């Protein structure tokens, strides 16, 4: 019995160790080494054949130089801040779009709900990459959007949307929308309708009832949704590189440049380590929120 419990507890920790701590350790180790023209392109590498002396030599070669380098160039801090801004704004827009959809789904008759749910999930059946690429066809100068707008006479010159930050926002909001809808829907679905009836009986207008009853009760879903969008959006690389332009400065792209253009794995690893540390803050807040919710549920 005890053994079984131990096993149950050990499993998630082993998972965490193998798939998070070990890879993180490798990345951290590379962040402490130096660039070299070799395979792999950094030095020192651990040479176990020399025994203890090899380990010692390896440890001597490590330093924090790459982290001080990050602090010395404004590029990195600007890229972090710009990523934070893009992630925050797109999370907010996603919330604005997702809430009415989730609300509508929760209000829909019971027999419609599985179908509506299906419609939200359906896009996942197509590759993420193809869905992002298809936005090029919609947003480009000769794309569907411009053609429709020009055909209807709303604009006379095609709008430049593709390769700007606007396209990045559109891409992120579109891609992460289901991650916002689903938790909000889950929270709204559980809502006891009699609470709203009570509020209205006690003199609330429908709008007041929404802000005083419905919205506060859906807050756990809103918070969960915001984290689910914000965290991956912060480190996003694919969407800005496909839809974004020169003005789009995001840490994912900076990291790509360090790794591919400079071939400087140590600095790239240092950027990754810092990004991870930045992400840990919202992730911990998210965990706490979840925990609080569970406790409240008990």
């Amino acid at each position, binding site marked *: 019995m005890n053994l079984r419990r131990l096993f149950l507890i050990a499993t998630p920790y082993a998972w965490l160790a193998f798939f998070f701590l070990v890879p993180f350790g490798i990345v951290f180790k590379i962040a402490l080494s130096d660039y070299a023209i070799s395979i792999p392109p950094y030095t020192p590498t651990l040479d176990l054949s020399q025994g203890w002396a090899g380990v010692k030599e390896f440890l001597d070669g490590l330093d924090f130089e790459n982290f001080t380098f990050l602090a010395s160039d404004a590029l990195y801090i600007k890229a972090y801040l710009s990523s934070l801004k893009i992630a925050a704004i797109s999370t907010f827009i996603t919330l604005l779009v997702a809430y009415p959809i989730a609300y509508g789904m929760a209000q829909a008759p019971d027999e419609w709900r599985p179908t509506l749910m299906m419609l939200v999930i359906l896009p996942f059946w197509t590759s993420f990459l193809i869905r992002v690429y298809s936005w090029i066809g919609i947003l480009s100068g000769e794309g569907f959007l411009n053609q429709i707008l020009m055909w209807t006479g709303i604009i006379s010159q095609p709008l430049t949307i593709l390769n700007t930050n606007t396209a990045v926002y559109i891409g992120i909001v579109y891609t992460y929308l289901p991650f916002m809808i689903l938790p909000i829907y889950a929270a709204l679905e559980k809502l006891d309708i009699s609470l709203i009836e009570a509020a209205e009986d006690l003199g609330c207008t429908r709008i007041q009832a929404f802000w005083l009853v419905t919205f506060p009760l859906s807050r756990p879903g809103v918070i969960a949704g915001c984290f689910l969008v914000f965290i991956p959006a912060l480190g996003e690389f694919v969407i800005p590189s496909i839809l974004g332009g*020169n003005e789009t400065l995001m840490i994912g792209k900076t990291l790509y440049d360090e790794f591919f253009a400079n071939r400087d794995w140590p600095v790239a690893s240092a950027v990754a380590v810092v990004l991870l540390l930045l992400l840990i803050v919202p992730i911990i807040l998210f965990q706490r929120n979840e925990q609080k919710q569970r406790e409240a549920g008990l």
Partner: protein
Amino acid sequence: MRLRKTMVAAAALLAAGAAGAEEVHVYNWSDYIDEALLAKFEEETGIKLIYDVFDSNEILETKMLAGASGYDVVVPSGSFLQRQVQAGAFQKLDKSKLPNLANMWDVIQERTAKYDPGNEYSINYMWGTTGIGINVGKVKEVLGEDAPVNSLALLFDPANMEKLATCGVHVLDAPTEIIPAALKYIGEDPDAQDIETIAKVEPVLTAIAPHVLKFHSSEYINALANGDICMAFGWSGDILQARDRAAEANNGAEIEYHIPKEGALMWFDQMAIPADAPNPDAAHKFLNFIMDAQNAAAASNYVYYANGNKASQEFLNEDVIGDTAIYPDAETTANLYTTSPWDPKVNRDVTRLWTKIKSGT
């Protein structure tokens, strides 16, 4: 007992399968081969060809430096090849397995020897120039009939770029291509190795960057063909492919490629075999297959790039060998320049400069 028997049988089958289906993994640039050649290779040799593509030297180099890429043949450009040879990424070619080496063109061999002395590690697949692709109608519409379409001033003069921005400009996202061109434009040595000289291009590029819709190394083919942009600074063959796609689509976009009169970068894409290639024997067979005169000609006829294969020239279509945008005349060729790799410190400064130019940060 029965289970064990089944397992032994299965293992034997797997082993037989592995031995029977010999494979060769080729990693080449996107839009860079006539797919019919791939089928022909499989038919002739019975080796299964797994073909994979990339669109930047940087991606290839990262895979090479990580090691164990699993590829048997890869196609880096000259200066990248040079650095990767230095890092020990490639094996020397076994020239006894490459009888078709006799077909190669000495003029190109001499130039590629700058990157790979004695051509010990690589064979030339294609070579070309980096220059100007325009949508003739649109460029003349914004710049007038006497637009300087064959001059670097089209790209580097902000007055021209400001107008071109209204119909869209793409530029290669490769400092190794653009910085030498900018150096040439301001009258410096395009192969400058010191950061002080290189930094002189910053004001030139910063002035035009806001007018560039996108820095990207492959999207311009389609963007130019579809009429989404009116100018691209890119690789010769890519722009000629855009020209043909536009002609096929019959969308009214007339695309032209121009080698800048000030001079252009001449580059070489070299086929090489990684040091840890799983099947170097099949890799040699592939290289030899590509150096066959008719195969090399078929590849060039399809992708509109010149190759380093002298014997193939009699099999080239007239619109390839006769096009001075692909096989430039002697006068233009004399004006082409080559570059060598920057050392890591300069490379880092250049990348930083490039980011600063593109994003203003």
